[in-house]
């Protein structure tokens, strides 16, 4: 067995040192009836065989890059420089543990410190944590953090929030005891939350660009929330949008959360991804997740450590701010490397290119006779289809075009079966858009 270094001779010698007759003697505490059951699974296989089986399964999927492709809605196909994947595969990053021993984990820790700074600057807020599982769980954590900060129980979710984010938040925050008010899905629904804010409101959650692609200046919502003592949580599922749009902090957000997959990370059929989480400095002791902070070593040299861990489960146990143990360290590293390659300049360029591709997409869709519903967009638009959007997607698939995401797949009960979400990024070519247009025209 190629992963198991012990030889039969090793095992015999070691049992001798231990003083056990055989290895089964070491399992004596296991009830005999439950020991060594027959397991009806295949025996071990060589690398070639395993590679064949998995390559075979992979070949049954249509990779996003295999042809014209317009899916977004919370996960985005971007080009990631080869350097990113190279570095995250370095043994010292890939096969290290959470940096609990800072003296021999400064590589990971400095990266986290840099990541936190990058996220704080992207979101226009003061502090960011060392990442969350993904955007949706970050959203749920943000809502629960608002409860800790405001000591109120109610959260208002905008109708523009990604339905999966809403469902995740509803499930998790509700379990923790919060009341979740989810507004009906609607294209340009952000302002509607203002009406709902009251003195019991812990927070309002608004997404921009929202799930329909609509870009919103949330400043007025921030004012309204703050006037009632509530927090504003701004959600972004497409982190590249930070390169072009006003930051949540600039618009008055108290907490910003985002899905960071777009930067540095592949689509991966939905995971692993990386949640971004930033807030104003005054809330820092109520934040969930890991934090990395600067300090000095015994000789006065600058160094980094995990800090404020008195918020965390391994110290506080049932009094922790969250039950989170792992973060998404390697995805955060990928994010940080890609962003350090981009820099502010490259991110701005990338965002502009994305926006330009989406404008080209919009023009093509309109030329094909469909109504575009999104008034202001970054790289995603919602389109009104003739008949169910899901049917259109199936039809276009037969023409080799993956046309986007029917909104009904995300929220079947919303009555928006004729809404299709389409996205374009820097990976979308004019040929791709032409193929979509032609297929639509057929």
């Amino acid at each position, binding site marked *: 067995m190629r992963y198991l270094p012990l030889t039969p001779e090793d095992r015999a010698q070691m049992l001798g*040192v231990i003083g056990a007759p055989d290895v089964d003697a070491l399992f004596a505490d296991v009830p005999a009836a439950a020991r060594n059951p027959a397991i009806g699974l295949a025996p071990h296989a060589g690398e070639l065989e395993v590679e064949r089986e998995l390559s075979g399964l992979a070949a049954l999927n249509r990779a996003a890059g295999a042809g014209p492709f317009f899916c977004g809605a919370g996960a985005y196909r971007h080009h990631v420089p080869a350097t990113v994947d190279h570095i995250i595969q370095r043994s010292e990053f890939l096969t290290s543990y959470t940096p609990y021993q800072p003296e021999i984990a400064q590589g990971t820790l400095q990266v986290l410190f*840099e990541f936190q700074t990058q996220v704080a600057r992207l979101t226009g807020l003061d502090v960011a944590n060392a990442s969350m599982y993904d955007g949706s769980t970050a959203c749920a954590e943000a809502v629960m953090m608002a409860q800790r900060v405001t000591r109120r129980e109610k959260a208002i979710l905008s109708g523009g929030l990604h339905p999966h984010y809403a469902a995740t938040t509803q499930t998790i925050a509700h379990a923790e005891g919060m009341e979740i008010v989810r507004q009906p899905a609607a294209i340009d629904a952000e302002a509607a939350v203002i009406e709902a804010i009251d003195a019991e409101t812990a927070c309002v959650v608004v997404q921009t660009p929202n799930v329909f692609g609509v870009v919103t200046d949330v400043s007025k919502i921030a004012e309204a929330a703050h006037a009632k003592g509530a927090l504003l949580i701004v959600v972004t599922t497409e982190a590249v949008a*930070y390169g072009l749009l006003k930051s949540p902090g600039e618009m008055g957000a108290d907490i910003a959360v985002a899905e960071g997959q777009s930067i540095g990370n592949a689509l991966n059929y939905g995971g692993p991804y990386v949640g971004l989480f930033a807030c104003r400095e005054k809330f820092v002791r109520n934040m969930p997740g890991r934090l990395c902070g600067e300090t000095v070593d015994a000789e006065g040299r600058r160094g980094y450590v995990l800090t404020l861990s008195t918020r965390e*489960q391994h110290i506080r146990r049932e009094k922790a701010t969250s039950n989170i143990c792992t973060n998404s360290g390697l995805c955060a590293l990928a994010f940080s490397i890609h962003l350090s390659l*981009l820099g502010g300049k490259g*991110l701005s360029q990338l965002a502009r290119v994305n926006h330009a591709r989406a404008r080209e997409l919009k023009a093509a869709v309109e030329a094909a006779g469909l109504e575009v519903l999104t008034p202001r967009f970054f790289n995603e638009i919602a389109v009104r289809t003739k008949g169910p959007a899901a049917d259109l997607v199936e039809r276009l698939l037969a023409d080799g075009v993956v046309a986007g995401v029917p909104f009904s797949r995300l929220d079947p009960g919303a009555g928006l079966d004729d809404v299709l979400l389409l996205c374009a990024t820097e990976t979308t070519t004019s040929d791709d858009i032409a193929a979509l247009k032609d297929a639509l025209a057929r």
Partner: protein
Amino acid sequence: QDEPLLFEVGGWDKTGVDLPDGPDADDLAGLTRDGVDLPGLSEPEAVRHYVRLSQKNHAIDLALYPLGSCTMKHNPRLNEKMARLAGFADLHPLQPVSTTQGALQLMDRLAHWLKTLTGMPAVALSPKAGAHGELCGLLCIKAAHEAAGQGHRRTVLVPTSAHGTNPATAAFVGYSVTEIAQTDDGRVDLSDLAAKLGPDVAAIMVTNPNTCGLFERDVIEIARLTHDAGAYFYCDGANFNAIVGKVRPGDLGVDAMHINLHKTFSTPHGGGGPGAGPVVLSQALAPFAPAPWIVSGPDALGLQEQDAGFGRMCAFHGQMGMFVRAYAYMLSHGADGLRQVAEDAVLNANYVKARLSDVMSPAFPEGPCMHEALFDDAWLDGTGVTTLDFAKAMIDEGFHPMTMYFPLVVHGAMLIEPTETESKAELDRFCEALRALAGAAKAGEAERFKGAPFLAPLRRLDETLAARKPKLAWTPPAE
């Protein structure tokens, strides 16, 4: 040598990508920001920055990483390669399911292996890490109780030795946590358990093998008592690697258990995630599992993405990238290899225990341990050296420290988990180093420990300073 922060070396108008400027977004007037205040690095600078930083890390690829309860085992590179196949990595979670049949088949096969190995009828794949899986499991239990009119059950029993995530998760879900006492030999105190199991108890959360590295030999009785009291048995599966292929939790009466794919099935820890925490469920709990759920159609697999169980744990279908890696690991080992994994993990731990017991003090000297060997600090009495000091001195020997001060039930605990992927030679090197250190501690060489590490990239860090005046982001130097 000090590696500057990227903010100190990067150029504020520099970039390591070649992109066109792109047209102005004149249709978004008033909504755009005025640049992004982040430095960029050319590609050579970026590579050097990260490669230099990487060399400041310890890693399982460099030496034994004996973090008890964390399971740092070898991460096969085949798994990395497989996860990067375009058919998996370049696959969108919302593509038409007809274009993702291979992915669904992989998830279905992974589920089959997990169910077969645990002897459980169902598995929820979407939880993104162990703690997320615990949450999922407790939400299933809560939903099951509510469906049965037992919503008044508000207490969860947790042994004192439990991982912090257990009480944290229970509290998170709104349960009150009651501790179960431990016997002198490191197991759940059955009489205390029986006494505390009442009509208010929703579940017990027991790790097995437990965090003392011991198998709960009364586990079947624990399950019986729990079920008789109308409660569910949640098993923390963090230590499943000690028994995989050897014992099926389903045979022991477990109702729910999360599986850390990075612990048992070798997906890399990555400096702190991403993990993956699928939860196997008993028949009683299966109906309450969250969306999404794979369903078999006549010709193809489908995904039920709405209205399943108690809700939704996250945006998509779980950690697909980790599923690929874990499945590759399973296929590589097979049923025979996985049993060997458990046996070798336990053998290695017992070997370390045997080789160190004369110079250190095992917390539970009697009987075998499972996959980790637990020592207390009694043997350090009078040396002036603490568990922490001893652990830091290990760094100077080229090893990562063991887990310290956990579990809480053992004074100055040192929890050593070698895993099955360590060779006897490396174990011997490790034991020799620890024996030499132990000798030094007892010989009064306290200074060698108090100041340790001496040979690491940095000396001991001031954690108090970090927490008292948190500096969590770089700020430009004052002019």
